């Protein structure tokens, strides 16, 4: 894949991300929650449906992880400098995957402990991101992580069940850190590659679809249902993307300004 950052250019973002997860901030699905108090009877039908939906989304982590593994391979199929970049990225990817897997476990356990039942694993087609520029994988995840964080926050605001509130708080904080990493990487691409990454980022916004929108049958009906429970619109994340674009570099160009206007327009109309 052409247009990669170097390993040295990527490394500070990875270091910052890993440093932000100090041991005292880490949590797990097994011991961090008062599961005995979990009570789905305190949830509305819509809130239960929302929990089922986000559990399914989080549980598809192997599919998301596989995308990064395929596009940023850590073996001799790539040149040494690309390997160095991919190996650096892998430090992030495995920690990120571990955290997302913890989300899936926490949500699944919540369903079991609260009386919602045992969630069944969904076997879905291979997840793919149809991108050919590396910045696109980070710009996509930037929007997706922020949109997810916003949704968890919105859902938490309407839920009156302390254990689920606690779970959503943990998840939301993690997604915020993931967003920060993606934002850091996108900003680095803009600083090091300038206008060359503008069009690829624009393409991500123009074609953006949340994970599983293409693979989960009936996705749109479910998305509509959970939006009735708490606001759910991925374009809510575009304000954050605009901020990243705005602050990434002092060297503003017409192309970058045009991209920001494009994202702002997409934010307004969805």
């Amino acid at each position, binding site marked *: 894949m052409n247009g990669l950052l170097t390993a040295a250019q990527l490394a500070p973002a990875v270091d910052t991300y890993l440093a932000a997860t100090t041991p005292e901030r880490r949590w797990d699905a097994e011991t961090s929650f008062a599961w005995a108090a979990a009570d789905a009877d305190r949830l509305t039908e819509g809130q239960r449906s929302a929990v089922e939906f986000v559990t399914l989304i989080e549980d598809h982590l192997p599919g998301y992880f596989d995308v990064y593994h395929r596009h940023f391979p850590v073996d001799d199929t790539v040149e040494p400098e690309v390997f160095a970049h991919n190996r650096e990225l892998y430090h992030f990817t495995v920690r990120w995957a571990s955290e997302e897997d913890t989300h899936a476990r926490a949500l699944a356990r919540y369903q079991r402990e609260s009386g919602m039942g045992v969630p069944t694993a969904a076997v879905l087609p291979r997840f793919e991101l149809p991108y050919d520029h590396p910045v696109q994988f980070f710009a996509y995840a930037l929007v997706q992580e922020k949109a997810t964080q916003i949704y968890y926050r919105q859902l938490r605001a309407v839920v009156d069940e302390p254990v689920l509130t606690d779970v959503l708080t943990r998840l939301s904080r993690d997604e915020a850190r993931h967003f920060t990493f993606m934002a850091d990487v996108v900003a680095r691409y803009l600083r090091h590659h300038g206008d060359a990454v503008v069009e690829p980022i624009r393409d991500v916004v123009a074609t953006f*679809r949340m994970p599983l*929108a*293409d693979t989960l*049958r*009936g*996705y*749109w*009906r479910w*998305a*509509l249902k959970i*939006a009735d429970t708490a*606001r*759910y*619109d*991925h*374009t809510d994340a575009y304000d954050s993307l605009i901020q990243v674009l705005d602050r990434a570099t002092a060297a503003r160009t017409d192309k970058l300004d045009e991209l920001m206007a494009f994202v702002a327009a997409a934010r*307004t*109309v*969805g």
Partner: protein
Amino acid sequence: MTASPDLITAQITDSVRAIVADVLSVPADELSTDTDLREVEGADSIKVLRLIARIEREYDVELEDEDVFGVSTIAEVADVVRKALDQ
């Protein structure tokens, strides 16, 4: 007497236009058949889904994900509704 296919399509298009106008709170006469729903002022992705859901109820059809995510304009919505009715 059976209505011609063109007439049925025109009726569906008018109905879709009225629903779009109602859900998105815009005058129907400002909406052309090639108006991109996501570019209508006040639209967002959830509102677009809401109006598709309403159209489903009005016509008693079930639209697939690829129909819903694949349409942009009133004419395209009318077309997938027409196809769903034909099935």
